[in-house]
């Protein structure tokens, strides 16, 4: 999850999280701190990675069992930092999938972005990145983006990244903005995750038939 606002990065440190009750002492003690600096803070708990600069706070986990704990941590931080101005927030879901057959991998790229209109201008045109934007049915977010690209981490892999972006009304009080985030996190975050998994499953399943 990502929050946009005016942050004070050095506050975001493992033992501050412990002092606020948002992590245990042992987790704080065992955190791996990359940097705590006035401009930027970056550290990893055993289950989550936290990065904060002056305008952006990002908390992520690769453990599917911790999706709700991640949400709780975001709620907790904005509750404790009750006066920090917030402007926007977003949910993100990301997956890398390896294609064993390079021909099928090319076919997927071609199906996403047919090359006929490009072949007059380029030899061997290939998809580098595709972003599709719209609204998830029933979502209150401003927009949902689905990005598809060759995986930068896996050979003949695909990276699918889904982002849902919410803009907070500047006319609202900080307390009202926090309520909006909590409401979205409680009611829409589980739906977002469900939808994201559905998107990945349905986009790719035809390419993985036995």
């Amino acid at each position, binding site marked *: 999850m990502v929050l946009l606002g005016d942050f004070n990065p050095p506050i975001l440190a493992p033992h501050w999280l412990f002092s606020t009750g948002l992590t245990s002492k042992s987790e704080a003690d065992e955190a791996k701190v990359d940097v705590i600096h006035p401009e930027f803070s970056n550290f990893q708990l055993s289950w989550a990675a936290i990065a904060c600069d002056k305008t952006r706070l990002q908390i992520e986990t690769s453990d599917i069992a911790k999706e*709700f704990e991640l949400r709780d941590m975001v709620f907790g931080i904005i509750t404790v930092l009750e006066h920090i101005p917030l402007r926007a927030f977003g949910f993100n879901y990301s997956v890398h999938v*390896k294609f064993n057959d390079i021909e099928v991998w090319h076919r997927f790229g071609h199906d996403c972005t047919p090359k006929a209109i490009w072949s007059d201008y380029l030899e061997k045109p290939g998809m580098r990145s595709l972003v599709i934007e719209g609204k998830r049915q029933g979502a209150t977010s401003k927009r949902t983006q689905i990005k598809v690209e060759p995986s930068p981490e896996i050979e003949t892999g695909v990276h699918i990244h889904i982002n849902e972006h919410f803009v907070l009304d500047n006319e609202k009080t900080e307390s009202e903005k926090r309520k909006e985030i909590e409401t979205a996190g409680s009611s829409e975050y589980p739906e977002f995750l469900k939808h994201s998994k559905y998107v990945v499953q349905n986009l790719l399943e035809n390419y993985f038939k036995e």
Partner: protein
Amino acid sequence: MGTSTPLEKAIDSSAPDPPPITFQSDGAELKLSTTTGGKPHQVLTSGYGYSSDTAIKLNGDNGAIKGTLRLPNLWDSEQSKVKTMRADLDSFKRVILQQWEAVVDSKDGDQMSMRLFDLKDKYAPVEVVTISVDELPQEEDRRNTTVGSVLYWTIGYERRRGGQRMRFTEIRPKRLPKIDHTAQLKINMKARKLAEKFGLDEE
């Protein structure tokens, strides 16, 4: 448990690289640790007399970390007090079978009774279970869990690259920010008003 579809297998085999193994050395003793295997910063092995290019066999708890690791040349730099590398170890991916939010209703010795609210199906009936407090892995969490505490209980399996599946169950507290005395008084007052409104006694 059903078999994996080809897509699930592909996602499994695309699990991110294994977490780095950290080498710590004071020039004499060597320690290898990692954040994987269920235990954060688990020390895999430590000892004396390792030289560069030594192969070390790793065996983690529950077989979570297995493999042979060839050490880089640790001793060629005075700066190399801590080195990290990505090791070619098995990685695993979790699949959630069931996940609940659990509210502790009573705690008696090392047993606690909880109501379970299904997080995957909000229409599922509320279940009541009694489990041992020892299911909480951290001592401070066992100590701090009281009546009214909220926990997450997850049951699933971990799929390893080799195709092996291992069941896991994990109970962790839901961590909420501490509230100060003033906020507590306000909550108490609000609760009293609601109790009056609905004709309930303070209990």
